[in-house]
Structures are given as structure tokens and as C-alpha cells.
């Protein structure tokens, strides 16, 4: 477990250069910005920035993009607390106690508690990644296409079972993602699939365009739906003395901190994702904590519960992403797409071939989360001011950012129309509660899942029983099957019963 420390030290030597620290600060700043602004979030913020990193060296590129991700998680908390607007789906649970605290004049305490808790969650998440990565890669090295396919199915199954959406709608989302992923060249036979005579479609549909449409345009549409969404400003000046006072009280929540960190790490490593983990952590806190009865009325422990698990899950999600190439959140899925564009193949081989990349990234996560806590606290007044700028100006500007971002992906006019189509699609999907994250995951994993399936079938000469041919694959396959069958069965039964 501790053989990773020399590697981590090398990672620090690589990540902590003035240039990379500057990238972290830029990334965190942009991340907080997209986290604060409605209509932009971590997945499409990272997406919009990605084309600009194609020319950078991969270590600096991933530092910039992951810093943006962490920053977005912090920015989402700021708006949740001050304005009751969750900038990110994973900060919804933060509004439950954060906003009542701010309204009661405890905004400084709420923000300090939230940022320190986020920082704590992040550090436990990264520590987990550091300690478990060697073990996880050794585990992953035993994987053949058979095991990979079962793990992919378990990832999708857990969305169906625990994602919180209607199971059948989740299945539709996953299938849509697979369908879009299969457009373009078939990796096995080389034939052009589902292009319907459009030569532009032969290079496939870019994940980045889909994300900009589904998250960016769709979210803008939802925000625009309410005319002049007025935000109630809460005092957003931070007095240093109150920050220190809140920081001194904060360790008292150690039980909640540890409990929420464990939940977050677990949900981050298994493909539960940050959003599900915040709700789970909040729910468990409410049931088992002594302060549980006061949850929802401005109880700091409720805030701690959601913030710690949010960041812990976000950071721990890097472990399956690097070791297995299995992202457990929409943003991780986009980052994974970036790895492939930079010419890196995620998976156990990445640890052996590019230790500089992997350990540089892990080391940067420690540093950039410290940068996050400091920057989040110091930039609160600035971002509160940005939020007060009328949305009738920021909204159209975000449209232009999405347009430019889509163009930089592939310089193709068709992409602009696709962005609109996916925007409309995303609007209806989120209004009708079709979950979007499983779709993004399916798009990233689509080709690899299909390849793994076809290779497994070649190995077994067409028998599906190959997925039960050894204990490891069999266990995962059975779990995956249960994840799909139970919710669907009960949903169909409930649907017909009415």
C-alpha cells in the first residue's frame, strides 16, 4: 500500500512547478465561474476548455481541466448557500442547510464550513486514490474483455438501480448514448455505420458537442423559461474574524466528517457519482446523527454531510477512471474522452507507461484542492457580484461561449446544428426527468463496451455464459443483472397495477 509514496513524491516534483500552479489557479478560477453561473456547469465547462488543451502536454492539460472540475464543485456550493441556486446538481443537498444559515445571517460560517468540508472530503478522496491505486491496477490487470464488459454493465446497472431516475427512462438514456456512440466508423469491421448518407457523420458525433448541447443549451433554456429569475441577495461580505471562528468550531463535526467521507469515497469508487452520494450522505446523517432532527433548518452538520461526500466522491472517482477507464460522473466521462484525445489509454497500462501523468495528476489534486479552499473563500464577493449582473446579459454571452466551444471541437458547421438538436433534446429530457449523466457515460463507453462484448463473444464462440465463466466476472455480471432486473420489474409491476 505504501510503495506508492516515492511515485507520489515524483508526482509532486512534476506537478508543483510555477507554470502548473498558475494553471491550477486559472483552472480553479474558471471552475468557480462555471460553477457559479447558471447554464454552465462542470461537465460543459471542462468540455468548452478541452479543445484549447489539445496542444498542451497532457500533464498540464489534465491539471488545468481537473482544477476546473474541483473549482466548479466549490462554486456550486457558493451559489447554493448565498442564493439558494444549486450551480451543480451535486450541490442541491447543500442548499437544504446552507441557505437557511445564510438567511439567518450566518453566511460566513456557512461558506467557511462548506469550503473546509469540501477540502477535507477532497483530501480523503485523493488519499484513497493514492493508497489504492497500485492495488486497483493489479486488480485491473487481471481483467479480460469479459470482465470489462461486466464492469461496464455494472456501471450502467447502478445508474438504473441507484440513480434516482425512473428505471425505464434511465434505460432509454443509456441506449441513446450507445446509439450515438455507434455512429461513424465501426472499430472492428471498419464500415461506416448509421451515417444515413451524410459524409459529415462518418467521423462520428463528438461527445463534446453532445455535452455542450445537453448541459449548456438545455440548461440555459430552462433558466430562460422563468422570466427574469430574480435572486435574493444575502450579505456576501466575509469578515476574516468570523472565518477563523467558524474554522475553529468546524473540527467538532468530526463524526459527520468521517461518516460523509466514507460514503463519498464509496460512491465515488463504485459508479454512484457525487450527486447520489450527497443525497445518501445527507439522508444517513439525518437518520443517525444527534443533530439529525435539525437538518434542513440551517444545521451546519447537514451542510458538512453533503459537502464532504460531494468532494470525496468527485476525487475518489479518479481511481476507477484511471485504473479501469471507468468514469463515475459526467465530468469524469468528459475527462476520459480528453485522455483518449491526448493519445492516452486509460487502464492499468497507463500506470506502467505514463507514471509521470498519473502521479502528476494525483499530486496536483492535493495542491489544487488547497488552492480551491483559499480561492473559494477569497473570491466570494467577486462572484456574488457577477451573479447580480442581469441574466439577460450573461445568458446571451453563455450562448456565444457554447457556440465558440462547439466550433473549436471540429470546425464543422454540422456540429453547430447538432449542438442545437442536443440542446432541445436535453431540455425535454431534464424537464421530463430522463437522467442525462448515464447518456454521457454510455457515449464515452459505447465503443469500448461494444468491443469488449464482441471480443468476449469471439472468445466464447457466441455463448453468453462466458460472463459467468469465472468467479470474478460471474459475481460482477450477477450484480449487474440484478441492478437492471429488480427496478425494471418493480417499475413495470407498479405501472401496470395503477
Amino acid at each position, binding site marked *: 500500500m505504501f510503495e506508492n509514496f516515492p511515485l507520489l513524491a515524483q508526482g509532486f516534483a512534476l506537478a508543483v512547478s510555477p507554470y502548473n500552479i498558475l494553471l491550477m489557479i486559472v483552472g480553479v478560477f474558471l471552475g468557480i465561474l462555471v460553477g457559479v453561473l447558471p447554464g454552465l456547469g462542470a461537465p460543459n465547462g471542462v468540455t468548452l476548455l478541452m479543445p484549447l488543451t489539445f496542444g498542451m502536454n497532457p500533464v498540464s492539460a489534465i491539471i488545468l481541466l481537473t482544477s476546473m472540475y474541483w473549482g466548479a464543485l466549490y462554486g456550486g456550493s457558493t451559489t447554493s448557500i448565498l442564493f439558494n441556486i444549486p450551480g451543480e446538481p451535486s450541490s442541491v443537498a447543500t442548499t437544504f442547510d446552507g441557505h437557511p444559515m445564510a438567511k439567518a445571517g450566518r453566511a460566513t460560517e456557512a461558506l467557511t464550513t462548506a469550503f473546509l468540508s469540501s477540502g477535507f472530503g477532497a483530501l480523503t478522496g485523493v488519499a484513497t486514490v493514492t493508497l489504492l491505486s497500485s492495488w486497483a491496477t493489479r486488480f485491473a490487470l487481471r481483467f479480460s474483455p469479459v470482465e470489462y464488459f461486466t464492469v461496464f454493465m455494472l456501471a450502467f446497472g447502478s445508474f438504473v438501480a441507484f440513480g434516482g431516475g425512473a428505471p425505464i427512462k434511465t434505460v432509454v438514456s443509456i441506449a441513446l448514448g450507445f446509439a450515438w456512440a455507434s455512429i461513424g466508423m465501426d472499430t472492428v469491421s471498419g464500415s461506416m*455505420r448509421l451515417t444515413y448518407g451524410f459524409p459529415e457523420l462518418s467521423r462520428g458525433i463528438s461527445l463534446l458537442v453532445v455535452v455542450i448541447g445537453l448541459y449548456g443549451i438545455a440548461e440555459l433554456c430552462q433558466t430562460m423559461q422563468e422570466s427574469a429569475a430574480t435572486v435574493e441577495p444575502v450579505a456576501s461580505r466575509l469578515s476574516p474574524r468570523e472565518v477563523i471562528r467558524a474554522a475553529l468550531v468546524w473540527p467538532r463535526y468530526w463524526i459527520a466528517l468521517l461518516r460523509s467521507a466514507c460514503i463519498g469515497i464509496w460512491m465515488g469508487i463504485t459508479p454512484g457519482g457525487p450527486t447520489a452520494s450527497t443525497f445518501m450522505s445527507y439522508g444517513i446523517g439525518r437518520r443517525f446523527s444527534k443533530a439529525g432532527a435539525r437538518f434542513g433548518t440551517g444545521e451546519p452538520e447537514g451542510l458538512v454531510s453533503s459537502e464532504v461526500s460531494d468532494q470525496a466522491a468527485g476525487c475518489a472517482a479518479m481511481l476507477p477512471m484511471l485504473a479501469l477507464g471507468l468514469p463515475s460522473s459526467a465530468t469524469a466521462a468528459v475527462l476520459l474522452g480528453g485522455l483518449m484525445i491526448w493519445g492516452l489509454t486509460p487502464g492499468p497500462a497507463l500506470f506502467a507507461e505514463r507514471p509521470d501523468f498519473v502521479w502528476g495528476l494525483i499530486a496536483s489534486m492535493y495542491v489544487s484542492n488547497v488552492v480551491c479552499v483559499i480561492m473559494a473563500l477569497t473570491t466570494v464577493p467577486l462572484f456574488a457580484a457577477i451573479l447580480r449582473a442581469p441574466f439577460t446579459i450573461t445568458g446571451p454571452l453563455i450562448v456565444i461561449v457554447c*457556440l465558440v466551444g462547439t466550433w473549436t471541437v471540429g470546425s464543422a458547421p454540422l456540429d453547430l446544428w447538432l449542438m442545437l438538436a442536443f440542446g432541445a433534446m436535453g431540455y425535454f429530457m431534464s424537464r421530463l426527468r430522463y437522467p442525462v449523466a448515464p447518456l454521457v457515460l454510455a457515449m464515452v463507453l459505447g465503443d469500448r463496451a461494444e468491443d469488449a462484448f*464482441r471480443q468476449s463473444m469471439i472468445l466464447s464462440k457466441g455463448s453468453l455464459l462466458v460472463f459467468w465463466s469465472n468467479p470474478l466476472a460471474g459475481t460482477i455480471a450477477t450484480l449487474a443483472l440484478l441492478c437492471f432486473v429488480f427496478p425494471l420489474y418493480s417499475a413495470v409491476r407498479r405501472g401496470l397495477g395503477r
Partner: protein
Amino acid sequence: MGQEPTPFISRFAVESAFALFLAAFGAVIIKGALEFNIGWGDIGPEAGYFPFRVGTLIVLASLINFCHAIVQRKKLAAEVFLTREQTRNVVAFAIPVIVLVGVTIAVGIYVAAALFLLFTVGYIARHRLWVTIAVAVGTPLILFVLFEYVFLTPLLKGPLENWLGWY
């Protein structure tokens, strides 16, 4: 703005229509997959195998969602999807954006962005003239410097830039 919101489109209408739309989309995927062998070849599943099953899954699951909406017709029909005001807001947002994409392809991103911002900030939101001009002229200029000189990622240009000597 004190008037009562008028219900315009019910959740039932959109829920069922979207399910049918997705079912039709699934059918298009099936049609695309049928151009290839959807069964087994010498090297395992052929190119059409996976898309065909995915398309079938979309059709079946969407039809279940459609039936589900029919079963819950009463409850969903009472739920408002969009009020008249909200519909107007969404349309007022969507149409300029659609036009923006068309105009971008014709005259390039910089000019289209300026026109779009003039229209949305100045005409729709009725901000002051100097605010409108600052946003509509400043944004394309900042984008131009950033993308053409800093990021070295040229954006789409049109006749105006060509006439000024940029390609």
C-alpha cells in the same frame, strides 16, 4: 407581471409526444443497422448487431414509457409543463439562437455574435444603448484577440473578415 400563470402545455402531451419521438428515433437506428448484417459472422457479432439491439431497446422502452403516460393520463394531464408565459420565454430564447447558428454559418462567428448580442441585449432585454454596444462590440473583439492570437485556434470567418484581409 402579477397576472395568474395560464397553463399552456400539459405534462401528458409532452411526455407522450417525447416517448413517441424517441421510439421513432429508435426506429431510425434500427433502419441504419439493417444496412449491415445484424447477426453473427465469422468473427462474432457483425457491425449491425449492436446498433440493431440498441435501437430495438429504445423503441421498446419508449413504448413502455408511452403506455405508462397513457395509464397515468389523468395525473399527468393536470400537471403543467409550460405556462403561456414560460412558452413565450422559451421561444423568445430559442428562435434567436437558431437564427444565430444559421447566420454564423453564413457570415462567421464574430459578426453573428455581434448581431445576436445587439438583438438579445438591446432589443429583447432593452438594456441601455451603451451597455448594448459595449457587450455586442466588446465580446467579438475579445474573442478575436483570444482565439486568433492567444489560443491560435481560428474561428469561422465570413465576408467581412475576408474583405478586411483575414481568412
